[in-house]
């Protein structure tokens, strides 16, 4: 049987620029290459020589969709290096801030980027003609997430209010109360979105991943926790580089991450949920049961359900945080820089985001290392593609392409986040 190649030159409905190539030889998928041609952005090098106080403004610009994740991993790593412990109300406000990002990012992905795959539309614009209510619901959810981000961060894109030790300004109770009304409506909308997504036809597909997520003693993880895996890994963020490695691959400007001992692993909502379902409130678990979301979902096409469940949880959690909020006595703890290394890992909407900074005694960055979730998921995305393509070899080419693209979007990849890491090697002769 002749060989054939299938190419998708530009993958739509993902953040950033990438393409896909499949080589099929004698009826077997011989090679899969998710090529990321987004130009490298050199953020780690750009951070070198900068003061600690500039980090949050710089890293927020890595991603327009998840700037809070970058700010939170950054701020925790800096505070780890300087030995700063923030006050409990500041910790609660940071979690509330993160809830806003989960709500807006997940809602955008679920309805605008991923749902059209399941319902057979080329995009959300075409889908909106037949599913207007679902799209309006997503717009309203996204707006609520953005409002929460704006309230705590000053603006929704590249927020400006987070700082080392806390916030520049903290909200009053009177400012938060109207947000609660919006969040109650958002919670109802999120439940409707979950039930809507549960009605989609899901391809039969099962993968056994090593799942990696944060785990906290009593919280569903966002800002804090140890890095754990379904294969028994249990480490602090400072040990991340002992267990994980980043590898350059020829076809991508993004590095591929791997567990040093076991290779590919999955981060993101499926991993977070499977490893932390017991940290969700009973009513959220009941919703998962109602829509048939198994405690450990192994079908990546069903990750859309986990995202919708997490939107519901983020609304719930934000309401709880607002109800118990007492404005802190001080908006921030002054930072005293010192020489050292700081590490942090937080749960971005797409999975764990690792930051490490080495500072001199004045708090100037000597080295920075940032590992986004999409870089970590690239290997499993390619493995998924290999299996999805193998299972769909009999499909017409356009259908196979569509199924492969849907498979990539299962992981909500943020390509431009992942493309910061190309090393520039200059050989002088």
């Amino acid at each position, binding site marked *: 049987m002749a060989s054939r190649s299938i190419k998708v030159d530009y993958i739509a409905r993902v953040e950033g620029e990438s393409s896909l190539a499949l080589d099929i030889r004698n009826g077997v998928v011989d090679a899969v290459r998710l090529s990321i041609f987004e130009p490298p952005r050199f953020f780690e090098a750009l951070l070198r020589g900068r003061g600690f106080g500039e980090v949050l403004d710089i890293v927020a610009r890595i991603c327009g*969709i998840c700037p809070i994740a970058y700010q939170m991993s950054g701020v925790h790593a800096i505070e780890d290096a300087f030995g700063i412990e923030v006050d409990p109300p500041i910790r609660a406000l940071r979690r509330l801030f993160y809830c806003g990002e989960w709500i807006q990012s997940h809602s*955008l992905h679920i309805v605008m980027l991923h749902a059209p795959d399941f319902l057979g539309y080329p995009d959300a*614009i075409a889908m909106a003609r037949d599913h207007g209510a679902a799209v309006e619901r997503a717009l309203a959810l996204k707006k609520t997430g953005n409002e929460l981000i704006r309230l705590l961060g000053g603006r929704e894109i590249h927020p400006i209010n987070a700082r080392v030790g806390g916030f520049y300004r903290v909200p009053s109770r009177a400012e938060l109360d109207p947000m609660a009304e919006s969040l109650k409506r958002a919670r109802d909308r999120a439940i409707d979105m979950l039930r809507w997504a549960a009605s989609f036809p899901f391809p039969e597909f099962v993968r056994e991943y090593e799942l990696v997520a944060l785990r906290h003693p009593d919280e569903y993880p966002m800002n804090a926790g140890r890095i754990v895996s379904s294969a028994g890994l249990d480490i602090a963020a400072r040990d991340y580089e002992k267990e994980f490695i980043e590898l350059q691959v020829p076809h991508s400007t993004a590095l591929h991450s791997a567990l040093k001992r076991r290779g590919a692993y999955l981060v993101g909502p499926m991993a977070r949920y499977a490893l932390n379902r017991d940290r969700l409130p009973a009513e959220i678990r009941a919703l998962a049961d109602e829509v048939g979301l198994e405690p450990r979902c192994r079908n990546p096409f069903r990750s859309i359900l986990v995202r919708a469940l997490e939107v519901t949880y983020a609304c719930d959690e934000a309401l709880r945080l607002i109800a118990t909020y007492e404005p802190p006595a001080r908006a921030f703890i002054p930072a005293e820089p010192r020489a050292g290394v700081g590490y942090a890992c937080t749960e971005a909407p797409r999975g764990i985001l690792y930051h490490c900074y080495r500072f001199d005694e004045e708090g100037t960055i000597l080295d920075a290392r940032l590992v986004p979730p999409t870089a970590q998921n690239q290997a499993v995305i390619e493995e998924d593609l290999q299996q999805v393509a193998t299972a769909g070899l009999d499909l017409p080419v356009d259908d196979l392409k569509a199924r492969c693209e849907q498979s990539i979007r299962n992981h909500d990849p943020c390509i431009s986040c992942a493309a910061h890491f190309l090393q520039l090697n200059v050989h002088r002769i």
Partner: protein
Amino acid sequence: MNEGEVPRALVIGVGNPDRGDDGVGPAIAHRLRTRAPSGMSIFELGGDALALIEAWEGFSIVILVDAIEPTTKPGEIYRFDLRDSQLPITAMPQSSHAFGLAETIELARSLGRLPQALIAYLIEGERFETGTPLSPASERAADLVADKILAELATINKAFRAGAGRHA
């Protein structure tokens, strides 16, 4: 809208004022703020384009102003009536994850949430570097577009008043 009232108009300046000619939309919005006639509102959009759908709720006439990448001549002004036609997507830098201006307009069309009149003025930029001011070509275009918008709204309002007079 009550009879005799002029239609509510909204001018939306899209862009980042800290990125050279990308700031031409907000610059036009600034020029209009001091000259806005009764019934005209101004909105500046620097972030999520999807926010437009809500921003123009309740307005009959919406005029968008934005910069585009240079193709022929910096400062060139293009006008599109978007009520019955699409913004030519190649004229717009494609947003990827975030919905861009063209996608947002088409989404609103699908949802039946376009205003009665939707007009876009696009201005070819020359430089988009961080921290740079508008180029002289964009400054001139901003003055011209501000005048064009005021003239266009005056014509629409006049026609409306004449129409309302006939019904009175």
